[in-house]
């Protein structure tokens, strides 16, 4: 009961502010609504007992990526309203495609519940203490089965670091 109240609270905030995010004309307003969406998603992670992911979402997404976005918006003078939609047709096509995909996925999800013997898609939640010391469990998995992806992630970060600096730094010798 309490769990579903919390879920609907966060889900409502997430969806509403996501919708506001893509409709604001000013990029900073969009960024603020993206921040609220991300915070609400962090709340949903917490409701799903993924505590470490909750705090990583806050540290990395909200405190990291969004600061980067706001910096760039301020640096490239995007904080003024811009002419928005390319053409009316494109908007309608976008809505239509989104609606089609949404209806399709929704129907699949809905029907899957009705098919007997296909209970795999809707399992019951695992017992609450299954993943209990969340950080420890996650660490054991990260440094056990997923050690190689972990090292590769550091290569990815290295590439991103180099790439971003090459892109953004003024070329003095060109």
């Amino acid at each position, binding site marked *: 009961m309490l769990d579903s109240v919390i879920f609907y609270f966060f889900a409502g905030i997430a969806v509403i502010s996501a919708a506001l995010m893509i409709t604001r004309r*000013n990029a*900073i*307003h969009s960024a*603020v609504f993206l*921040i609220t969406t991300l915070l609400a998603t962090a709340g949903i992670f917490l409701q799903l007992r993924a*505590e*470490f992911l*909750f*705090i990583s979402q*806050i*540290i990395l997404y*909200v*405190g990291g990526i*969004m*600061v980067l976005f*706001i*910096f760039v918006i*301020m640096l490239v003078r995007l*904080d003024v309203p811009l002419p928005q939609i390319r053409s009316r047709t494109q908007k309608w096509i976008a809505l239509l495609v989104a609606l089609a995909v949404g209806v399709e996925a929704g129907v699949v999800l809905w029907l899957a519940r009705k098919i007997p013997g296909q209970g795999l898609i809707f399992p019951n939640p695992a017992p609450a203490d299954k993943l*209990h*010391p*969340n*950080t420890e469990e996650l660490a054991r998995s990260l440094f056990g089965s997923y050690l190689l992806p972990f090292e590769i992630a550091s290569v990815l970060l290295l590439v991103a670091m180099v790439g971003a600096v090459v892109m953004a730094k*003024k070329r003095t010798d060109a």
Partner: protein
Amino acid sequence: MLHSILAFVQAWWVELLCALLIVLVVPLIAVYIALVERKFMADVQARPDPMRVGPHGLLQQIPDALKLLFKEDLIPANADQFIFWFAPVLSMTAALTSMGAVAFGPWFQVARDINIGLLFVVGVSALSPLGIILGGWASNNHYPIIGALRSTAQLISYETTAGFALVSGFLLAGTLNVRAIVEIQRTDQAWFVFLAPVGFFIYLIASIVETNREPFDLPETKSELVAGSIAEYGGFRWLLYFLAEYANRIVVASVGTTLFLGGWLRPFPNVRWLTWLDAAPTLLLAAVGAYCVFRAGKQPAREQSLFMWAVALACFVVAAIFALAAPFDHLPFELMHDGLYGAFWFLFKVSAYIYVFMWLRFTLPRFRFDQFTRLGWHILIPLAVINVVGVSIALALSSEFGINRWVATFITTIAAIGAAMLLLHWNDKYSAAASAALLAESSVSEDTHAG
């Protein structure tokens, strides 16, 4: 419905009480930290600060806060209304919410025994730069925007440093849970400041930076940028930023205390012949009360001496509570005893930490922006990484090869200090030319270079 609410309150009343206390008391504490700072600064500069409102200006902050509360609520014409409203609320909420996981003693904690513990405090308080940059942008004015960019650049470039320093503490603790971290410092018989001194030093510097104190107060730099990112804010909105700043100061001090200074533990908790230290809270409070009585006779006005008597009485009452709780350190009353004494030692250490901040503020001159970023990126970050490696190697040496852990700690600390010397040496060779080139330009025009 009513029944379930009652059951809920019964299950969580300590936490809910604690939540209420934090919201009510922390603004008051923040305001009084500011008063202490003013008095201390006045002392350093050989002048008395506020002396009129209350004895020795003890009540000065209350009319100040009321004035801010009833000031005209001004929003500049070309500011962005929505974000101008939202930004200070974000800063303040982030700073106060992060206190939810701080343990002000073994029983005073809003979120008891959460798995991510200290990381929650660090992560949520890291959101307040967002409030600063949004507020600066919403003002739509040159000074606040430059101030906000600088301020955020400063806050975030040292957040990583603080993160690496915290890792060295977590290595020693083996958990993120706040209460477990403190308990492990009791069973290990050492505060982590002694096992990772370099890590504590780095965290101390990073925490000064994150609270915008001199010598790192570049965002405010009153001589260059008016008041930095909050120049357009006044009245209650300014008060929100102020509270966020002071609450953040308490938060970083609490994190440093919990992880490195033994949290709520009494100094030497395992040494038997030092148990008399338990009398320290009672004696200290009684001494403060006696001093108040001594000063009460010397006040110029009758109201002031009455107030002084009231303060003395409050001190004596609290001292009496401590004295009465002292014998009850066994089971049925253990909670009360541990809670009271733990809270005293924790707040004592936090105050000492904040006092060190003030001390440095009145002693050191301000850093220049280039010196400051170079200190962060060229010296502190590599040093913090070296320190993490050193602490992990020391731990591995003492567990795998049975080397005494103090010897191992000593060796790795010496190695880290040597590395720091080397980094400083390289940096000196490197920075002389850069500094000379930079002195030619003023630092505000430096910020606005296009492209």
